[in-house]
């Protein structure tokens, strides 16, 4: 397929590379021109703007930071688009924002899919991301070959916004999951028990999770390099809390977790991996 790709950060770069490896014809654009070079070396064409990345392509994919960025990029896409183009946003933004963008594009005759991902940098490089998709099912079917180059667990969830709702639900589980593992480790340490043994024992039971396995190991190694930056998890949990506020939905665990991530950003740990929440717990209990 002919695909335009916009946004070449840690995630976007790896995803675009996998599209090229999958035999697709890819043109790329990023705000910082230097981030395009690795893709051009791999055989991508350089687009001169977001509009240009859409022109003459069947698909255009965005992977950027936040809703205003997505809206801006998609407005540029709409201005240049030819009928039949499918626009796909794989960033994590609020479901309501995704629905709004979907409506705007529909008015311009463009199909829009919200298709956020889970699996981090590792999953992006390996092409094993989980991809959760909202929008028209027909557009999803057409875009599926592209998704298959980037991910393994590809689920069509429902109408526009449903992909972002799923991603928000994912961030509830992973946010509280990281905090739960960190609290278990803080608990073990304060009791003078070896945390690595606790992890090993728990991995065999109902407390098993990928987070206990992977993030737990990184906590033991005190390797706080991202991975997934705390400020991004804070941003995602804010989407959850804003949506809960608008809907009148009681999420006490998410609220407590969001405050922990908020405190991490406020105390200068925003650029560290979200597992640095362990350090915040240790500080609160004088375990430093």
């Amino acid at each position, binding site marked *: 397929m002919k695909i335009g790709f916009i946004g070449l950060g840690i995630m976007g770069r790896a995803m675009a590379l996998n599209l090229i490896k999958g035999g697709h014809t890819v043109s790329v654009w990023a705000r910082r021109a230097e981030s395009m070079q690795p893709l051009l070396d791999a055989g991508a064409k350089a687009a001169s703007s977001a509009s240009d990345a859409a022109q003459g392509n069947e698909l255009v994919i965005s992977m950027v930071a936040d809703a205003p960025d997505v809206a801006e990029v998609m407005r540029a896409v709409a201005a240049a688009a030819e009928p039949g183009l499918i626009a796909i946003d794989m960033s994590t933004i609020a479901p309501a924002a995704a629905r709004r963008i979907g409506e705007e594009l529909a008015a311009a005759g463009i199909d829009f899919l919200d298709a956020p991902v889970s699996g981090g940098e590792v999953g992006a490089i390996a092409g094993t991301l989980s991809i959760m998709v909202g929008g028209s099912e027909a557009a999803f079917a057409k875009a599926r070959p592209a998704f298959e180059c980037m991910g393994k667990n590809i689920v069509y969830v429902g109408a526009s916004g449903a992909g972002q709702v799923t991603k928000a639900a994912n961030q509830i589980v992973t946010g509280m999951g990281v905090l739960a593992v960190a609290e278990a480790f803080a608990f073990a340490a304060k009791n003078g028990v070896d945390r690595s043994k606790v992890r090993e024992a728990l991995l065999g039971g109902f407390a098993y999770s990928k987070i206990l396995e992977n993030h737990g190991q990184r906590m033991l190694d005190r390797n706080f390099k991202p991975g997934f930056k705390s400020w991004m998890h804070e941003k995602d949990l804010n989407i959850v809390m804003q949506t809960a506020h608008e809907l009148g939905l*009681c999420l006490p665990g998410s609220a*407590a977790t969001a405050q922990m991530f*908020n405190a991490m950003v406020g105390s200068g740990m925003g650029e560290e991996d979200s597992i640095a929440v362990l350090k915040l717990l240790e500080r609160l209990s004088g375990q430093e």
Partner: protein
Amino acid sequence: MKIGFIGLGAMGRPMAGHLQKAGHQLFVWARRPESVGDLAATRCATPAELGRCCDVVFTVVTSSADVEGLALGPDGLIEGMAPGSVLIDCSTIAPDSAREIAARLGEKSIAMLDAPVSGGEQGAIDATLAIMVGGEAAVLERVRPLLDCLGQRIVHIGPNGAGQVAKACNQMIMVAAIQAAAEAMRLAAAAGVDCARVQQALAGGSAASRVLDVMGERMVKRDFSAGIEARLHHKDFGLVLEAARKKGVFMPLTAAVGQQLNALMAQGWGRDDTSSLLRVLEGV
């Protein structure tokens, strides 16, 4: 003085009445004309027209978007108010919105104070409101006689937006105290103890507070009809938590109380009093 007033709800109506009683000439604009009722005031067709007539304009409305629309929107105050006139916004809105509106009005030399109030409907009726003011001190001194008609404790907090920050702090403390009172009442009832006596005893000790007096009594009497509609506290908690997020401030209790307010809204008590937080606990 010629005074404009927009927002004749439970708070605004008695406030407008006090200004009129003090001898000021009142001009009003209302989205729903019938809300002016029997108030003897000159009605204006638009906020801009009201702005043209007045030296000082008060707004007491609900949201940041409401104030932005009134001040800066089509036919807004900015199109009518003269250089040197003053907008006093007594609504509870986001500090950032207050700063932005003040800056836009400032470009036309129109002064603005953010002057949110605390004390509820009774405080508005009794003219005993606490008023927390953000903006230039010299502007506050010019209009202080007007604020003296409305409240007893008028404090200049700092530049524009500072009044709204103070109000956010007020809301955090107040609603957390309502939640604490509700949990205490719930524990007393579950333990088979008379809530009225607990509330009476506590009022004389270290836990005494205005919230325990007023909201505690509502809980004891199970009178959940609004004093302050809970939906407004819910709205304010959205502002407070957003402000905390922007500054990276850790607020675990406020976040937890915010979720109880979400539950209250979900159960359809948004137009009842915030003492309904007790009913949320009882439903668990």
